[in-house]
C-alpha cells in the first residue's frame, strides 16, 4: 500500500506538553494520539524542555515539522480544527489524499 505509506510520512512529529494526568490531560493525550505519533512530555518531569519550547500553559501541542512551529493550547477536542492548523487532511477526506499543505 504505497498510498498509505506516503500518507504516514506526511504526519509531522508531534510533542504534547502536559502536567499530570487530569481529565483534561487524558483527553488531550487521546486526541493527540489520534493525529499520529506523539511524544508526551510532562513539564514537571522535564522543566528544561518546557522552558526551551516556551510553554506557557498545558496541555500544549507542538509540531516542529511544519513550516513554522505550530502550537495549540487546549484539550484538542476540536480535532478538525487541529488537523487544519497542522495541515493534515481532515478525517472525512483522508482517503482522498488531500494535499496536507493546502491550508498551511
Amino acid at each position: 500500500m504505497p498510498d498509505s505509506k506516503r500518507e504516514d510520512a506526511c504526519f509531522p512529529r508531534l510533542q504534547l506538553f502536559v502536567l499530570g494526568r487530569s481529565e483534561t490531560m487524558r483527553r488531550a493525550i487521546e486526541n493527540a494520539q489520534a493525529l499520529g505519533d506523539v511524544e508526551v512530555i510532562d513539564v514537571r518531569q522535564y522543566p528544561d524542555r518546557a522552558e526551551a519550547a516556551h510553554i506557557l500553559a498545558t496541555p500544549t501541542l507542538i509540531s516542529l515539522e511544519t513550516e513554522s512551529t505550530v502550537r495549540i493550547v487546549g484539550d484538542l477536542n476540536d480535532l478538525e480544527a487541529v488537523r487544519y492548523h497542522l495541515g493534515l487532511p481532515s478525517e472525512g477526506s483522508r482517503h482522498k489524499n488531500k494535499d496536507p499543505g493546502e491550508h498551511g
Partner: protein
Amino acid sequence: VTGIMSDRDIVSTLALDRLAEGVLLIDDSGMIAYANSEAAHLFGKSLEDLLGTAFSLPVRTEDEVEIYIPSAQGRVLTVQMQVVPLDADGKSLSLISLHDVTTVIEAKRALEAERRALEDSNRNLEEFASAISHDLQQPLNTIAGLLQILEMNAKDRLTEDDKASIDSAVKGILRMNDMIHGLLNYAWIHAHGQPMEPVQGRKILDKAVANLRGAIDAAGAIVTFEPLPTFLGDESQLVSLFQNLIDNGLKYRSPDRVPSIHVTVDTRDPGQAIVSFKDNGIGIPRESFKRIFSTFKRLQDNASCPGVGLGLAICKRIVERHGGSIWLESQLGAGTTFHVALPQEMQMLSKGMSTAKRAAGPT
C-alpha cells in the same frame, strides 16, 4: 496597543487591566497581540515578555477548557480558557479569556478531603461501636448467666449478704448493658441514619408515647400535646428524640405532684418548627445546662433514676443531624422545658397551621 491610542482605546485598556479575568488577543499565527495585566500575572511574565510570544493557534472552544499554568514556585494554576474569534478591521483575531479557578478547585479538594476524613471517622466509630456490642456484651451475658447458675445451685448455702451481692452484680450488668446500648445508639445516629423524609408529627409522638406506655402508666403521668406539623427528618430518630425528651420528664419528676408533660408547637418560623416539652419535674440548675447534653453526664446520681445519661446527648446528636438545635429553660422545683427546632416540610406548612387553628388546645 502600539502607536497612538485613542481615548476609547485607553478607556478599554484601563478597563481590561482592571478585570479579574486574564484576556489575550492572538492573531491568526498564534502570536499574542494584546495581554491585560491579569493575563501577565497568571503567566508570571511581564506584559513586554508576553507580547509577540507564540501562545496558541486559535481553536475555537465550545465550552470552557481547563488548562494548567505551571508557576515558578511550583504551584500550578488551574485556568478555564475560552477562545472566541473576533473580526476586527478585517484582521482575524481571537479573544482568549482566562479565568483562574485554582482557589475554587483547591477549596473543593480540601472539602472533599475533609468529607472523606469525616466518612472515615464515622466508619471507625461504627466499627468501634460494633466491637463494643460484640466484645463487651458477650462476656457480660456470660457473667449474668453464670451468676444465675451460681444463685440457683448455691441457694441454700448463700447468706442474705451473698444474695444482696449477687443482686447488685446483676444490676450492674443490666446497667452496663444499657450503657452499651446507649453508646451504640449514639454512635449509629450518623452511621445508620435514614434519609430525610416528610414525617407526620403526630405519628412520631404516638410511637414515642407507645414505647413509653409502661413508664408513663407506672408514674401516673399525663402527656398532652398540640397538633404537630409534618417534619422533614428520619422517622426512627425523631421518635427516639421525642421519646427521650418525654422520658426525661418522667425520670426527673417531682415526688410532690402528678407528673405532667405538655408538648407545644411553634410554627411561626417558616421552614422550621419549634417543639417544646414542658414538664413539672424537679428542674435543672442553670450551671448544668450545657453539661447535660454531653456524653455520660448525669446530674443526679441516684439509683432511683434509671438510665445512663446518654439520652440528652443522643437528642442533641439527632437534632444536629437534622440541622436543628436544642435548648432548655428550667426552674428548680418547678419544671423544665426542652425546646427543639426541627426542619418542617415546607409544602405542608399552610396545612399544618390551619390544622393547628382548628384543633387548638391539648388533646
